[in-house]
């Protein structure tokens, strides 16, 4: 186990390094010029030259990368070209929003999907299973932004149960914080519920065909007991792997929901920074999102080895 973890950690460091290079290069390959974003239409060649020097953008890419990565290792992600805000501060403000959205939305998804899959797998192809399977198709096919708009229209505009936009920090007002994340979390959970349900249902049905399940049945154990105690764990590997990918992608993939609900999370800030060619902000945020993705999947891999020793030996 220890060797496995060390190997994966080395891989994680290597991947993170490659990501940092890739992020840096991709950002600098973007068309457009940050000096124009900063100077606006009042740009002049002289002003542009001065600004490039001031921002360090007149140096070679290699020099720029070295300066950036050296600073990152010392905790200095740099400052926004536009607002002067430190990137570390911007990340510290944005990241908790994403983490909270991820936790709440994925908790919602699991709470709904797992029992639903258990119920469906208990009697495959019966009415409940068919309704749930058809429903999950529908949930997958509805774009997140449509769900978000409908939620706002019903729960914010019509019955005023939740705010339409905005985020209240937990430290400011815990109750308002929960109110502010309910609708965006439902919007994000909507697709995940369908995916998790379908993955788990399929694996549960397959598991229920295994010999050891037949043995359990022959002992007179109830189907519900067998599902929960004997089938759920071995059926959850695909679900867990899927959740890892889903959670990792939500670090920045919640962009549409963040825009619609005006939540200044990582995705929202990152896209704004891309539009403004705010290089250091883009690099810092993209690096954090990518590292988050890798770490989440590392944790998932680790959990899989705990749940299924065969993975370790593979």
């Amino acid at each position, binding site marked *: 186990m220890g060797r496995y973890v060390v190997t994966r950690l080395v891989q994680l460091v290597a991947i993170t390094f490659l990501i940092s290079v890739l992020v840096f290069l991709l950002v600098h390959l973007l068309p457009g010029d940050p000096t*124009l974003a900063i100077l606006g239409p009042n740009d002049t060649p002289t002003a542009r030259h001065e600004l490039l020097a001031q921002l360090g953008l007149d140096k070679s890419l290699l020099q720029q990368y070295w300066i950036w990565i050296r600073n990152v290792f010392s905790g200095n992600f740099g400052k926004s070209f536009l607002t*002067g805000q430190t990137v570390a501060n911007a990340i510290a403000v944005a990241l908790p929003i994403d983490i909270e959205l991820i936790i709440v939305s994925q908790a919602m998804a699991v709470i709904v999907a797992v029992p639903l899959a258990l119920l469906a797998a208990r009697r495959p192809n019966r009415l409940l299973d068919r309704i749930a399977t058809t429903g999950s198709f529908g949930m997958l096919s509805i774009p997140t932004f449509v769900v978000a708009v409908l939620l706002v229209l019903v729960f914010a505009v019509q019955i005023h149960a939740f705010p339409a936009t905005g985020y209240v920090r937990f430290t400011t007002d815990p109750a308002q914080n929960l109110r502010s994340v309910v609708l965006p979390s439902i919007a994000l959970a909507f697709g995940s519920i369908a995916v998790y349900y379908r993955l788990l249902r399929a694996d549960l049905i397959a598991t229920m065909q295994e010999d050891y399940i037949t043995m359990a049945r022959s002992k007179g154990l109830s189907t519900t007991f067998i599902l929960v105690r004997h089938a759920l764990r071995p059926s959850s590997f695909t679900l867990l792997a899927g959740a890892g990918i889903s959670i990792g992608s939500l670090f920045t993939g919640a962009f549409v929901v963040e825009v619609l609900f005006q939540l200044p999370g990582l995705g929202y800030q990152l896209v*704004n920074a891309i539009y403004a060619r705010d290089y250091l902000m883009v690099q810092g945020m993209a690096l954090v999102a990518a590292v988050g993705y890798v770490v989440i999947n590392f944790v998932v891999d680790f959990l899989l080895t705990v749940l299924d020793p065969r993975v370790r030996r593979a």
Partner: protein
Amino acid sequence: MSARGRGVRVTGDDRDVDRYDRRTFLGRSAAGAAALALGGIGGPVLLSGCSSSSSASTSAKPGVGTGTPKRGGTLTVGLNSDIDGFLPSTNHFDNSGIVYANTVYDTLTAVAADGTAQPYLAQSISSNADRTVWTLSLRPDVTFHDGSALTADVVVANFRALQQSPLTGQAVKVITGVSATGPLTVQYTASEPLVAFPYYLATQVGYVVALAQLDSADPSSHPIGTGPFVFDSWEPNDHFTARRNPNYWRAGLPYLDSITYKPIAQDQSRQSSLQSGTIELMVTRDPNAIVSLQRDPSFQQVTDANPAHGQNDVGFIYLNTAVDPLSDLTVRQALACATDTAQIAKLFGAGVLQPITSPYPEGSPYRAPDNGYPSYDLAKAKTLVAQAAPRHGGTIKVELATIPDPRLSELVQAVQSMWGAAGVQATVSQIEQVTFIDNLALGSFQAYTGDQFDAADPDENYVWWSPTSAGPPGTIALNFTRNKDPELEAALQAGRTNPDPSARAQAYQQVDTLLARDLPYLWLTTNVWSMTGTDKVQNFDNPTLPGGQPARGMTAGYFTPTEFWVEP
């Protein structure tokens, strides 16, 4: 009294002295009202209906307070964008930026409802006979939020920061000298007559910030002004909050305890936020949102459509006159004839936007009675295309682009269809904003959608239209279309330097006519901004100046919250 040949003076409170107002500035010409719009400025200053004899407090007019103003309370306003910082010399103040700035800063002058530039932080402003030297006297006993005093030295330091900044330096380069000639007196010297100078001081270059902010290591993130509210917090893309300035120089103001701005980029989200009670007031320029909210009786709405004075932003298409095939005037004429602006207004205006043939609004003294702008004529467009096509390889091909905006994307598709009907092969694309601006400045485009030219005084558009700002493609130029008409430059110079109102009106009518002749822009529709609030929000469009004179109301999505109040 003629304005020609003598100096002018305006005071903040005394209206019997020589005035820099409509009467002296434009005279009583047949043209009538001046079009002295506020171009990206912080001018509108609000005064409550109850605070002067010109009270409108019993009116049920939207945006005008009814009853006695209530002190206290908080207000949350939804804006369309966020600011990139608070330093006038380095940060970009779009309409939201101006709102933030108007909350914590004051401008030296402001635009009155009658279109004149009036002193604000200044007590008076006067010039020499040829308008090359302007002298400004400041109000006494005005303090910044950090307790420091507003003095001539502070104003000079602010102006020098503007001169040294790449962002604002070009806008003020005509001012070659600025000095403090007394504790509260500042003198500006211009390299040429600058008739519109008081209007410039009502724009971004007219805000005054404290020396502590100017000297700060991070001057963009913590504003220190003299304004009605004191900066409290700013979280980019989330909120900006300011609290009442207890020592505001306008006695008894502001009414609100605090105000919070929430940048909500999506119009639909902003509208939902208003309808759900998340915000209490919002701005928008989306015609559909304007109409939708107008129909809802639970809200009150004001718009800047049909301005009595001034020149609002207009919607148009930039045509790059320096690249083939648009360097061919016949092609540009063909495109103008093929563009059915009435249909565009019908399709995308929701009854709010109107088709236009000039950047100057109806009733403006600067609008030519008949500028000769080509009207929609498909048959003529086809003929012109047939004439020009042989010079361009047999086919006229034009690339039309816009920024990623759903409404503009549909608009360019409609225009593509119209041009196609005339025989022009148009391709359309969306280009992300920074690259879009980059291409405009460098002349790396053929036809781009535009939205610009809001101005308090027509001279504010000099830099965009002057041939002196038109470089060849590949170099940065502020005259994006690269139109180099010497007659246009002569007309712009006449308007810039001649203090005679009639002569200025004539000059800008000539500008209007020449733009219609040269066709660097295809005029499309008006732009309309609105403010919509719940009944709880009072007096959000009832501005007055310190002396009680009505000030210009909401324009181009910006306002000053000094005299807003909320019903408990």
